[in-house]
């Protein structure tokens, strides 16, 4: 594989490119969904392709195609097309693309795992799903009982004209359950351990057992039914305790996307928008309260975007985005780091697959844990609402005004948990929200949550990453009427 990548690089250089990189990728994925008693989806996918990127006359060209083993002619042809494309587009550039200097990455990285999900018999993977779906049953109000399993393996060989040669094997596995109840004129879905298909973690099938799907199924079912007749939230301002399985998405939308450097520099405007966190505000913008430490980390144990290098050969790293409440850094690629005048890239250039050019993507971002115990935090809150699970999210093009709806709310009255609240919806401004954070729970409550379908780019491509958090409290957050 490395030879095919090098074949493309040599051809690109011979045609006048000043920089060439090539990625050979073999990607495998599998999805199993048991819906009520039926295996409603049993699908697998395998891809094998080559991407070649060439910098010519200050413009990038990119070409990609499926590959057969040893297919050197395709490798050379793609290099020729990438060079030709860069050359055609260069006259339309107002400034030449410069790449931040980086040492060539040589080596390999493999996600640690115990049980290869692709080597396991399908019947063994289905067992826990079928058992969990059965445990979601027993109540007529529940019309949809669902258990999902998914795994993805991405094996890549990256090489560049600067001497990079890196082999990477990434693996993630996940699962989840959900019950949808229809009662009292309401349709309510409750899920575990996370919404929208479950949670995904780096590693193999051993991760599925950690979710304890069977043990949580009866609670998930009963909460879905109870929520159908639960009151909606009293509109107005309430103190909010956010469970980490929802806080992680708040981090993703309001911090992760806001600190992508291409977006901050106006180059994502045509699809998902811009960012209020512009480079001129680095070091001065008061993003959050002093308790807010938000760290980007593509080396984190437990992150879906934990790997050796990004898709342009920059080594993984850990760095603060928000330190002591202030904006201090961004997520970047070599091109955008150079545009900003930074000495090096943060290593966030990633592509969905061989078919996609790398763009700046969110890596693993976490809210550093504080020291609170969750029950002590609830007791200290007095009156408020605890929100758990993602039901809905939306954020404006500047990443300022957001609105989230939780799957489940719990009233906090007199420092104690009270009745359930259906679909609490809170809205706010990113800066006001993070500045109102006055308590973060401790390391015992901290957990990474995987996101497998983050969309960005135009044409859109998906990326995976994790966000880590412990429950945290935000003061006087505005809730809408249900």
């Amino acid at each position: 594989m490395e030879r095919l990548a090098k074949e493309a690089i040599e051809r690109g250089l011979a045609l006048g490119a000043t920089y060439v990189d090539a990625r050979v990728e073999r990607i495998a994925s599998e999805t199993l969904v048991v819906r009520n008693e039926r295996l409603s989806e049993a699908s697998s996918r395998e891809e094998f392709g080559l991407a070649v990127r060439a910098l010519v006359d200050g413009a990038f060209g990119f070409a990609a195609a499926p590959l057969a083993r040893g297919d050197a002619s395709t490798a050379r042809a793609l290099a020729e097309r990438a060079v030709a494309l860069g050359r055609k587009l260069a006259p339309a550039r107002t400034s030449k693309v410069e790449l931040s200097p980086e040492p060539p990455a040589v080596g390999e990285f493999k996600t640690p795992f115990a049980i290869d999900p692709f080597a396991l018999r399908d019947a063994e993977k289905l067992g826990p799903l079928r058992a969990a779906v059965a445990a979601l049953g027993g109540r007529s109000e529940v019309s949809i009982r669902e258990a999902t399993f998914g795994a993805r393996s991405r094996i890549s060989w990256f090489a560049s004209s600067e001497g990079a040669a890196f082999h990477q094997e990434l693996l993630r596995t996940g699962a989840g359950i959900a019950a949808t109840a229809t009662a009292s004129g309401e349709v309510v879905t409750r899920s575990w351990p996370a919404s929208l298909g479950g949670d995904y973690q780096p590693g193999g099938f051993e991760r599925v057992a950690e979710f304890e799907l069977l043990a949580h199924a009866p609670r998930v079912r009963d909460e879905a039914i109870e929520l159908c007749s639960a009151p909606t939230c009293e509109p107005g301002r309430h103190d909010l305790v956010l469970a980490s399985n929802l806080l992680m998405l708040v981090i993703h939308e309001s911090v992760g996307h806001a600190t992508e450097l291409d977006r901050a520099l106006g180059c994502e405007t045509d699809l998902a928008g811009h960012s209020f966190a512009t480079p001129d505000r680095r070091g001065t913008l008061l993003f959050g309260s002093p308790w807010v430490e938000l760290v980007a980390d593509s080396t984190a144990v437990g992150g879906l975007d934990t790997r050796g290098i990004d898709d342009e050969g920059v080594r993984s790293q850990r760095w603060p985005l928000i330190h002591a409440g202030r904006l201090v850094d961004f997520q970047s690629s070599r091109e955008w780091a150079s545009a900003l005048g930074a000495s090096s890239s943060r290593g966030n250039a990633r592509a969905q697959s061989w078919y996609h050019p790398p763009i700046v993507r969110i890596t693993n971002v976490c809210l550093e844990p504080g020291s609170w115990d969750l029950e002590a935090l609830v007791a200290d809150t007095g009156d408020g609402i605890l929100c758990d699970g993602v039901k809905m999210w939306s954020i404006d093009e500047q990443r300022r005004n957001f609105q989230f709806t939780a799957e489940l709310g719990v009233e906090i009255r007199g420092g104690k948990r009270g009745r359930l609240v259906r679909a609490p919806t809170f809205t706010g401004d990113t800066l006001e929200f993070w500045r109102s954070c006055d308590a973060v729970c401790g390391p015992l409550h901290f957990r990474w949550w995987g996101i497998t379908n983050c969309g960005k780019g135009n044409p859109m491509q998906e990326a995976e990453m994790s966000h880590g958090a412990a429950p945290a409290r935000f003061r006087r957050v505005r809730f809408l009427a249900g």
Partner: protein
Amino acid sequence: MPLFSRDESFALARELVAKSPAAETEVTVESTVDRFVRYAGVGPTQSADRERVDVAIRVRVEKNGGVGEARAEAATLERSALERTLGHALELAEAAVAPLQLIPLGGPVEVEESCAAPASLAHPFEAKADAVARALARSREAGFAPAGLFETWSATRALVNSRGREVFGANSRASFSIVASGPTSSGFADTIDADVANLDVAGAIERALEDAARSRDPSPIEPGEYEVVLGPHAASALLLFLAYEGLSARALEERTSFLAGRVGEPLAADAFDLVDDARHPKNPGWLFDGEGTARERRILFERGRALGVVSDRAHAHLTDGRSTGHALPQPSNSGPLPQNLVVGAGVSSLEELIARVERGLFITQLHYVNSIEPRELVLTGVIRHGAWRIEQGRLAAPVSGLRFTDSLVRVLKDLRGVGSELVRCGALFDGEVATPALHLGSLRFTSSTRGA
């Protein structure tokens, strides 16, 4: 790799069907050529000259009185990988065996062959670069920063199954888009067509620049309930949720749809007509679905009355025993989906719709719309790329960002007018709708977005 021809596609699909020992087998072969240039103020920022082939094998195996069904896909031309894919489909199907009755795969069917536009397939990068250069130059002259995409995409698709069904078609899509941004405002325009020759790139550039110029220095506005005229892009962002959340036979059967218990009722105002029509020139698509069934023109709303849903073979019992041809590739955990929605055009121009509003808002685009509740279709999202007060039937001062939260079912009941010009447009998530501008009696805005 050029696009697979009809013969090449059928040859590969037939070969795999013949190799399969399963009781029933269906093979889909799709080849795609995609060429795009994305740009911003610095010129082209991302571009690709790329192609792919996707082979999907669906099998059904029978064992111990039960049946199992699965799908395996390969995006590779390696023969060994395709054989491995067939093997994996069989293994998955074995694991899926359950005492179920499955409707047999469909037999031979006549489906008209669609064609890709030759100009879209042949469209050169030089022409894309010229359009980008024009967008940059005009934006620079007007004092705005541009960003957008020029893409041409072409594909062929063949489906062959072991019951003798063989269908083939081709498709293409060309699009140019531009966002023109200034310090306090922005404007958006796009042009989409199957044939790149029909794109109006220069017109799109000028429309975006004009909206950016006239939405400069917007004033804040209090949240509340406003009478609104939605431009086609704003309308499409809402209407796509009819497809995502409720126009599927499965959602109706599971009672998660807003149509549950309401089919036949007047759910929208008389002015609202909606069809799904893959042959409509304003929103054309594949003429067969994920099971090879011909896509039917399906009337979903007529004079505001909800007439029904779209179906696949598994849910045909909900549509007079006949699939309407809206299946996704099977087996799938998602139900059938309308993918070529067309709103019935009215007779009023956009200016005439605006002229009927005493006090209200004109909104060009709604961004990041998402669904809070499926039965009443409660949605939320924010306005962007230009919004103005309407005062005494005329566009007045531009306004700054607002977030709406409202029930689509509620607002369609108070649809007061439909524009005459159908525009094909999409939103942040998948899908496109051909829709004119819509005049709504009210839309509830629940918060205002704040400047940084």
